[in-house]
Structure formats: C-alpha cells, structure tokens
C-alpha cells in the first residue's frame, strides 16, 4: 500500500496503460508546453496540463505518443474518434469540462453514434479526461460539472471518481474499455489522498461503491459530495443516526441495483449533486428510485443540488451554490421526521 493523491493515482494509471499497450496515446493542450518546435526540447514537460497531472509522460513515452495540441478541441477530439476506430486507444483532454461546447459534436454525434449508426461494425475505444467542479473561485466558465450532459447521450460512458483508488482503478478500466468514456476529474479532489494497493486491478465500470454502511437513510453522493456526505454522516452518528453513503462512481452505466438494495433497507433517500438541478443526475436517480422502489419508500426522495444559476465567482455566493455539510444535515433531519 502506498498513499497517493488523486492526481498521482491518475498519473500512475496513465503510465501503466501506456506501458501495457503501445496503442495508447495522449492528446491535449499544454501537456508538455515549451518552446522551440525545431529542437523539440527546451523546457518540455513544463506543465503536464494546468494541474500537472500528466507531468513526466512526455519524457517517458516521447512526443509521438504524447502530443501537445493547439486550442482546436474539435480537431483533436475528432482525430481521436478516427484514431480509435482504426486501432489506437486515444486519451484526449478537455482542459475544463466547461469547454465542452466547442467540441461537443465530435462526442455527441461522432464518437457516440459511430458504432450504432454504422451497424455495429466499428468500436470507438477513446477516453476523454476532463476537469470538473466548483469551489475553486474559478467563475462561471471554469466551474461546472455537466455530468448529465454526457450521461444523457446513448453511446457514451461516464465516470467520475471520488478518491485515489477509484481514480486509478476506473481510469485503467476506461482505457481498456472498447466504448468512448468520459472520465471526469474534480479539481478540488486532485490533492486528496488515500491508500492505494500496489497492484490495483482495473475497477469495472458500472459498479457503485458503498462508502459507509448504515440502516436509517441512503445518501447518494455524486463525486465531491461524498466528502460532505461523510462529514454529515459522522456528525449524525452522535445523534444515533446511521447513514448509508453510496457513490455511484459511474453514471453511465449506473449501478441501479446497488441503489435499490440500499433503499429497500433504509426506505429514505437523499441525493447530493453539486450540478444544476434541472434534468440532472439527481433528478434521474430520484425518478429511477421512485419508479423501482415505490413500496419501500417511507419518505419523499430529497435532492440537494446547486440552484438553477451559473456558478458565481465571489466566495459567499459560490459557497451558497455548493451543497454544504450543514445543508445536508438539515435535509436529512427533514426526511428522518417521516
């Protein structure tokens, strides 16, 4: 066991995948960074992307497989589709998920529909790594999560790890998966640490994780919200409340069975998601549970989400935007009254 940050875990998964399969390549902006196209040297490997996640890869695997791109997301996302169909396993970076719009067509219409529309003859084994999340004082165009935007689209798989184990294990799986996978990394989780076994195996996509066992209420926590869910659960222990925390980890495919099993036991559910509320993961999960666990439910399903606004910049407003431990506790108490 070693203690790894999420950032290190992702870097390890990339290195292992590059080592295991020579068809794995990486394309993105400022992976290397530097100067002097002719000599191709200089201060290469300066950045590793804005969060330094890919640092060292260029030196290890060379510029043929680790490619700095221009600010041309539609171009290199489309290239990833073609490369994936013909034999490579491209990983492409969308520096912030907020930039989705400039290259969405390549995912929504090309990557996602290639297999289906052309009769199931071709696969598109590509991974989009992207950075999501509020709480960084990064304003409206660098703080969104947009989970549901991708989850909505048939043909795309969507993964969003919370801790370092899941980050590594799920990324390993995403890279060997034969479908296009959107792998969402939360900027406020990069530095969070946990123990990761040396020879961690790929963690299958579509399997949720019970992060805490309990019998009184099911908390479905979306990515960073696991942090606050755990805080809330720990506080509530003192009041004799046993919360069960479930992290779905992958939103498409979603581990519905795990959710239903938990609800069967607790009869009460709260879903916590820092995304906007309308047509969100929270509303999707809520509707699934109400359809499938109607007779088990002892209280209305509660959703705790951001308001229907863009992410504001100023700290008091952004803190209000993100569901907090305090709000979670309050909401749980409301449900427990039933």
């Amino acid at each position, binding site marked *: 066991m070693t203690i790894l940050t999420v950032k290190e875990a992702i870097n390890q998964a990339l290195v292992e995948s590059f080592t295991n399969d020579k068809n794995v390549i990486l394309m993105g902006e*400022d992976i290397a960074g530097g100067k002097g196209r002719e000599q191709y040297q200089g201060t290469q490997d*300066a950045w590793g992307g804005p969060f330094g996640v890919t640092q060292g890869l260029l030196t290890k695997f060379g510029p043929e497989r680790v490619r700095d791109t221009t600010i041309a997301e539609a171009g290199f996302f489309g290239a990833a589709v073609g490369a994936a169909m013909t034999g490579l396993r491209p990983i492409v970076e969308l520096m912030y998920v907020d930039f989705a719009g400039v290259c969405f067509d390549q995912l929504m219409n090309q990557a996602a529909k290639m297999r289906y529309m052309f009769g199931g003859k071709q696969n598109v084994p590509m991974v989009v790594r992207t950075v999501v999340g509020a709480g960084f004082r990064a304003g409206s165009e660098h703080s969104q999560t947009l989970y549901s935007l991708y989850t909505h689209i048939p043909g795309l798989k969507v993964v969003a790890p919370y801790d370092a184990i899941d980050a590594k294990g799920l990324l390993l799986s995403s890279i060997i998966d034969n479908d296009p996978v959107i792998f969402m990394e939360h900027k406020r989780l990069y530095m969070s640490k946990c123990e990761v076994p040396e020879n961690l195996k790929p963690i299958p996509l579509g399997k949720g994780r019970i992060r805490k066992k309990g019998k009184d209420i099911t908390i479905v926590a979306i990515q960073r919200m696991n942090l606050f869910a755990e805080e809330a659960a720990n506080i509530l222990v003192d009041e004799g409340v046993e919360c069960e925390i479930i992290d779905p980890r992958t939103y498409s495919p979603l581990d519905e069975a795990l959710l239903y099993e938990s609800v069967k036991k607790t009869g009460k559910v709260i879903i916590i998601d820092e995304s906007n509320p309308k047509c969100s993961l929270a509303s999707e999960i809520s509707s699934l549970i109400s359809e499938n666990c109607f007779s088990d439910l002892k209280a209305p399903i509660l959703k705790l989400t951001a308001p229907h606004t863009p992410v504001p*910049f100023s700290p008091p407003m952004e803190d209000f935007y993100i569901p907090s431990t305090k709000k979670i506790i309050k909401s749980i108490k409301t449900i427990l009254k039933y």
Partner: protein
Amino acid sequence: MNIDQNKLKWIYKKLFTIRFFEEKIKKIAKEKLVPGYLHTCIGSEAICVGVMSALNEDDWISSTYRNHGHAIAKNCELKEITSEIFGRKTGICKGKGGSMHISDFNKGMLGSFGIVAAGPPVVLGAALQEKINKGSKNSVTFFGDGAIHNGAFHEAAGLAKLWDIPMLFVCENNGYAEATATDWHLNTKNLSDISRAYNMISYRGDGNNVFEVREITQNALNESIKKNTPIFLEFKNYRFSGQYEGDTQLYQPLEEINEAKKTDPIKIAIEKANDYKLSSIEINNFKKQALDEVEEAFKFAETQPWPEPEDSLNDVYVNYPKNLILKV
C-alpha cells in the same frame, strides 16, 4: 502623427495605470489576498491603450480572461474593476464574474470570455447590428495567438468577410498560449497571413509601440468603414506575465525575457515622450497620478462589503419565477 494634448495625456496615464495595476495584482496574488484565477497583462499595455485610443468611448469591444488592461483602457471604473477582483458586492459584475470576466456593457464591452475565441463571433454580431441599423459604433474583437486555431475565430472571420462587415479582428501575438510558445503551436510565420485565406485585408505592427498601434488602428478603422470590410491586425509583443499568477513560467527562457525587456512597451513609451514634447516632470506626474489612482482603488476594494449569498440568484434571466431558481 499629431496627437491632441488631452489624448496624449490619456495615453500615458492609461499605460501607467495598467502597469501599476497589474503589478499590484501580482503582489496581492502572492500574498493570497484575492480569490480565484488571475491573468495579468504585463507587456500588453501598448496594445490595449493604442487600440482604445483610436476608438470612441462607446465603441464595441470584446475581451478575454486576460482583460484588466482592456477594461482599464476602455475607461471602466478602476474601483469597480478592483472590487470585482476582490469578489465584492460593488464590483463591476456584482461579484459574479471575477477577474476572468471583468466587463462593463455600459462602456461598450460586450464581454470578457473564459472560452478561447468566444469573442470574435459575438463582436461580429454587434457589427452586424450596427450595419443593419446604420449605426456608427466601431466593433473590435481582441484575442490571442492561441485563439487563431479555434473554429469560432475562423467562422467569424469567414462570415465577416462574406457579409462585408466593417470590424477589426485584433490579434495580440504575445509569443505564448498558456505554456505553449507560438513557434511550437503554429507553422504560419505571420498570423496576419491567416486572414488572407478569407481574402481579408491585414496589417502587422509593433505591439510594444503604443503610437504605432494607435496609427495602424486608426487607419484600419477608416479603411474598414470606407471599404465596408473587416480587417485583421496582428500586434507582436511579449507576455511578461505567466499564463496566470502562480505559473512558474519555467518554459519561458530567461534570455528571452531579458531580451524582451529591451522593448518593454512602457519603456518605449517613455523614450518616445520627447517626440511629443513631454518633459520628464510631466511623465513623472502621470506616473504619480496613475499610482495614486491604483492605490486608491485597492483601498476601496478591500473595504467593500461581500455580496449576500442569495444575491447569486439574481440576473439569471430577465424574467423567470424566482422560486424555480432556488432549489436547495
């Protein structure tokens, strides 16, 4: 070129204000006194001030996340800019935008965008509106060398030319797009060549010489209106600032930075003061005024109230049921 005395004073004062403002931002960023990402524009002063000096107060512009210089040169209130960067209620965007989105519509700013190349199409729209309504406001979009690669720029350029829209595409070629040098990301030697594909007139100029920037812009505005056509301008300068405050800038070689210092836009402007019969006393006066104004703005900002958390619920729509916005 003859310059009216008031304009000349304005130019010097703005150059100094931008430089001092950004230096102050760098300082407080180090002390972690302000939240969020900060993209300063040390090295861009001559382009910001030179272009804006050729514009009318209410002309349209768009800017980017690296907008402090544009906003200051567009005569946005310095106190409001600073207050916004501090995230306060009296900020230019009421604390909703932050440093990356400093923009005042009432001063002709259509927006400061966090998405690379989001500006050109929006300014194209404003220019289209001016054309349709036979308005007289000029339209200018600012973007960087890195934005050249983005489809939004190309699509706007193609449409502007096709529709005979008078507007200026102003590309600041500061040598870098984040950590990636221009010679790393582009095969085209002159960025202005790119516009030729659209049969668009283009000019290049020294982005460190405020008077050259001003003259090229003035001429381009006149030509653009006369010929009813968009024009592309490339101004070459150097990004002394990192991509953002906190960037180690390891990829920028020291020799390169030192070389660029020889043509620092502020230094060049001071050297040229003589040509315009400004004494060093006058120059020092401008400096002092600028510095005072900057200090005052920061003092103001620090003492401003924070927004209320619920203020975040306003301004999403013009008209929408309030109870449907808050969902917590």
